């Protein structure tokens, strides 16, 4: 407020103060004159109370400094009184008492006024510096009479702007308005009424209101900004909702286990066991495990507290409420729950998987049974054909068969024989795959076996042979199976090359990998690199296409070879260049176990 200021001596005085001082001075002088007159004149006048007018006026406005006025008044009054009343003792006493009364009353008034001023200043400080918004509004019209800056700034208004509004203006939505009106209509005093105010730019501001009626007309209201809290709550709620949805709709069971007891279980776990959530929570997880798995579960659960790079996982049998057994795969992660160590468990229902596996196993068994039967059924009619053809070819003259016809019959025989071989291989493969076939391993020298294969297959007449196997090489394997392996590889080498054929058989003993390496090299058509893997598959579909006819038989016999080598704990590899030749190498561990079947 731009009031003019006047400096007199060391004191700074406003114009209002000057006017007040002038009024006090005039009143004091008047009182002195009236007092002087009343003593000097023969009639009595009421003079004493007049002095209270300037004294009260002075102490009201200037407090302690106003006491000077009271002092001056008392001295002057006493001087005049003594002058006229001396030496009447009663009059002197009464005059002195009245003079003291001036100062006393002035002091008392000063004291109270200072008290009131101090209290007011305190409340003003509270009002102005409060961290709460404070507003006073009209009980009937809700127009805002007074606010502190805090409230104005809360809503981005200046204090002048906000006092032109009503409380209803700053409530964000009609719904909030009606809630406010309903509440203020019901309750004269309210605490913690949460609502939303609109800031100057229309944004929402969450507030907590507490109000009280000061009198019939005015309501005092404190406003707390709870935006941050509400935002945090909302975020928290959003997160909670997210986690809730995640856990409740998760197809895997999710548990929190603390000291072995279930603290939380999601609906999937309830469904998995058939118990309600209430029946599960607080129970020992171990009580739901099949007793046969109890020991391994106890051992497993003892490791839960450890910090490991990946979750621990193991499968257990659980007992459902109906007493059924269900397989569950448990994955655990150490977490903190309510500020204490706990274990987060993800449980995957594997009973369905186990059922499927069993079914697949049964189906496979069934399929193998069918293959064996089919192979037998296919082979049986071939026998008479082969028998008759053999009969005709072995003694053509007696059946009146001429040379041309004999050649045709011989070609028939080759084809039928090939068919027989395929069926036999199919049967062999299904027997190998059934896992019912066991090796009968013994230790024997390799070179004589290779010689026998070559001799009995007559390979020396079909190709130029190079054999590099030292006589000292001993191998532990199933001799009959190794014979079949070598025979199959040599047959392929012959079938997939043209004259002049060159076939090499090389042996190398691996020093580092402790394996026998037997390589069979040909100079045949070779195999494209992209078929290096598929040639070892049985002759069915590879990548959705049937293997070219060229490799059909090769594929089947190679898949048997591979199975047999693998049964020895070994493997087979191929290196090949198209139109230059292939090298098949079988790798068989040297430390093969010698065992004899029955």
């Amino acid at each position, binding site marked *: 407020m731009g009031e003019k200021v006047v400096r007199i001596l060391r004191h700074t005085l406003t114009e209002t103060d000057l006017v007040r001082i002038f009024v006090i001075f005039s009143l004091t002088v008047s009182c002195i004159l009236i007092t002087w007159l009343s003593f000097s004149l023969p009639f009595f006048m009421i003079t004493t109370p007049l002095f209270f007018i300037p004294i009260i006026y002075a102490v009201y406005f200037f407090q302690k400094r106003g006491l000077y006025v009271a002092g001056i008044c008392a001295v002057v009054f006493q001087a005049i009184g003594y002058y006229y009343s001396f030496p009447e003792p009663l009059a002197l006493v009464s005059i002195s008492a009245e003079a003291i009364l001036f100062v006393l009353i002035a002091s008392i008034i000063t004291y109270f006024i200072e008290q009131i001023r101090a209290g007011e200043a305190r409340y003003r400080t509270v009002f102005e510096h409060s961290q709460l918004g404070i507003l006073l509004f009209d009980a009937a019209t809700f127009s805002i009479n007074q606010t502190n800056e805090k409230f104005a700034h809360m809503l981005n208004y200046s204090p002048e702007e906000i006092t032109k509004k009503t409380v209803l203006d700053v409530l964000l939505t009609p719904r909030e308005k009606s809630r406010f009106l309903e509440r203020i209509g019901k309750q004269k005093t309210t605490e913690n009424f949460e609502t939303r105010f609109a800031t100057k730019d229309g944004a929402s501001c969450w507030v907590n209101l507490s109000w009280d009626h000061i009198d019939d007309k005015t309501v005092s209201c404190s406003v707390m900004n709870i935006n941050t809290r509400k935002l945090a709550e909302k975020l928290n709620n959003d997160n909670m909702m997210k986690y809730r949805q995640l856990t409740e709709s998760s197809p895997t069971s999710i548990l929190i286990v603390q000291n072995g007891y279930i603290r939380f279980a999601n609906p999937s776990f309830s469904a998995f066991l058939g118990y309600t959530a209430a029946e599960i929570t607080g129970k020992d997880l171990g009580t739901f495990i099949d007793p046969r798995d109890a020991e391994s579960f106890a051992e497993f659960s003892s490791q839960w507290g450890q910090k490991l790079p990946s979750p621990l996982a193991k499968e257990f049998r659980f007992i459902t409420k109906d007493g059924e057994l269900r397989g569950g795969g448990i994955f655990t992660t150490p977490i903190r729950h309510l500020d204490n160590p706990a274990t987060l468990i993800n449980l995957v229902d594997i009973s369905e998987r186990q059922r499927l596996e069993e079914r697949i196993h049964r189906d496979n068994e069934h399929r193998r049974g069918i293959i064996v039967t089919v192979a037998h059924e296919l082979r049986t009619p071939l*026998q008479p054909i*082969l*028998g008759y053809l053999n*009969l005709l070819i072995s003694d053509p003259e007696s059946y009146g068969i001429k040379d041309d016809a004999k050649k045709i019959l011989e070609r028939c025989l080759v084809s039928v024989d090939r068919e027989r071989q395929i069926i036999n291989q199919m*049967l062999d493969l299904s027997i190998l795959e059934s896992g019912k076939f066991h090796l009968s391993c013994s230790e024997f020298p390799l070179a004589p076996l290779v010689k026998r294969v070559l001799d009995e297959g007559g390979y020396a007449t079909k190709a130029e042979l190079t054999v590099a196997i030292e006589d000292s090489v001993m191998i532990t394997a199933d001799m009959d199976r190794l014979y079949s392996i070598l025979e199959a590889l040599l047959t392929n080498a012959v079938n997939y090359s043209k004259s002049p054929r060159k076939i090499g058989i090389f042996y190398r003993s691996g020093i580092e990998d402790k394996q026998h390496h037997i390589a069979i090299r040909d100079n045949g058509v070779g195999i494209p690199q992209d078929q290096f893997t598929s040639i070892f598959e049985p002759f069915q579909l590879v990548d959705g296409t049937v293997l070219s006819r060229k490799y059909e038989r090769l594929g089947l016999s190679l898949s048997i070879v591979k199975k047999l080598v693998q049964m020895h704990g070994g493997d087979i590899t191929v290196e090949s260049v198209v139109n230059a030749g292939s090298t098949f190498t079988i790798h068989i561990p040297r430390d093969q176990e010698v065992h004899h*079947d*029955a």
Partner: protein
Amino acid sequence: MTRKIMLVEDDQPILDMMDIILRRIGYEPVLVPDVLDALERVKSDPPALILLDIMMTPMNGWEFLEKLRTEYGNKDLPVILFTASPSVQEKIAVMKDPNLGVLQKPVSIPELKAGIERFLGK
């Protein structure tokens, strides 16, 4: 010595073929398509040798052999098993029974001849 050879086989085409081949190589085939008749036939008309299929119903070749050797106590009658692919079971059986032979199907004429001659001589 009789040249009778009993063939126990439930597949008629094979029986027919074997009939021709056995006659051709100089034997007198006795064809038994039903394995349940075979034991009676062994008693009533003893052959010099039995050619026995394994996969047969309602009794397979192993069961027939077991009955022949134990119930009928006939341990001397030579039997040749026809097998799809010789397994350990057959190998062991052959080692234990001197009057048992194995031939892998389909058998060629020289193989059949040699197999029979092993027991009956030329």
